[in-house]
């Protein structure tokens, strides 16, 4: 152990930082993509392309799962900070 740099803390900050700081936004992106999957109903021509919810039930279910994981991770993170002090 180096007395100037706490390598253990550094390592944890990089790895957990990557999981939380890059992984969660990526998961959010997956959720967004699932949410926008087109459903069975036929889109009328010239449909609003800004529609976030595509209408596919499986897609919506997957999206809800993704967003739930993201929210749970944030909640756990806050709990971890409060409990750690």
């Amino acid at each position, binding site marked *: 152990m180096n007395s100037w740099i706490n390598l253990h803390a550094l390592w944890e900050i990089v790895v957990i930082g990557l999981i939380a700081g*890059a992984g969660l936004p*990526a998961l959010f992106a997956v959720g967004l993509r699932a949410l926008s999957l087109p459903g069975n109903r036929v889109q009328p021509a010239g449909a609003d392309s800004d529609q976030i919810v595509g209408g596919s039930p499986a897609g919506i279910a997957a999206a809800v799962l993704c967003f739930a994981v993201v929210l749970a991770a944030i909640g756990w993170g806050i709990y971890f900070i409060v409990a750690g002090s």
Partner: protein
Amino acid sequence: MGNDLVLVLVVVTALAFDFTNGFHDTANAMATSIATGALGPRTAVALSGVLNLVGAFLSLSVAATIANGLVDTHLVTLTVVLAGLAGGITWNLLTWLFGIPSSSSHALIGGVVGSTIAAAGGHGVLWHGLVSKVIIPAGLSPIIAGLVAAIGTYLIYRISRNLSEGVRSHGFRIGQIGSASMVSLAHGTNDAQKTMGIITLALIANGTLHSGANAPIWVIVSCALAISIGTYTGGWRVIRTMGKGLVDIESPQGMAAESASAAVILLSSHFGYSLSTTHVATGSILGTGLGKKGAEVRWSVAGRMATAWVFTLPSAGLVGAGAYALAHVIGGTPGVIVDLAILIAVAVTIYLSSRKNTVSHDNVNDDWTGMVTPAEPVAV
């Protein structure tokens, strides 16, 4: 017991520093959200202010580092603390005038270390604590945050490449509000702590608290309020540099940058590193510029900021040392009051020169023309 009048002056000055810390750092959390239009400027600063308030109560490990880990508490007097604060406030106001997002934390630490050296010599500083808890994290944190943000940005664009432009920017704007809120919360847990640590240091120096004590509840509450009000005031100049100057940001990049910042700041707070939220947020914004193909990163702006960072500790230290020397020469309570009078004069001067070309919630998002202050609007 020490001098109660001086103690009161020190506490008020510390809260004033906390206020400048808040408005200097609003940008760290909200600049990207304001730049992409995810939040209106006024809503953004209000949200950030409230979350800073909440965050200030969450964790206290950074306060302990500042109060007990940087300087020898036995050598610190109230005058030393006050001179240190004067250094921190002066640097914060100057960098705000020029729209440079420099680290409030380093300004504070530099000021206190400088005044301690002036008062007691180099042995009054716990150099090991300073290097291992402040300087090394300051060098590493922007790189880590940049790396996380670059990878996050790459993943987000890769995953969402089939989405239409409208869906993507709308969806990520919602995500941005969440991630920016986390940064505000993290800022409260990290930066509000620093002033709590300083006031605790002053109380220890005055003999009100014993060495190694934690921050009392009234200190926590008043610091939380001061930083929150400062945040709400909004340092529009710095927001502009962060949001428009470095990289032209789209909402997916904004979300990636903020998530990276929040993760790195919260994790570091947990380990008691008093790192600079400014350094982290800047690293993240640069990282997100690197992670997206074809994004332009204005390295000249980044270079100017990095230069300011290098000078932050020594400059604030010099002001702190000078303020201590002056107060020491005059001596006692009058010395402290002269210091304060000069500090107020400097603050008013800087404020008045900022009035010549204001940046506010109205023009904060104008196109970047290489200047902090946007071009004069054409009269209609």
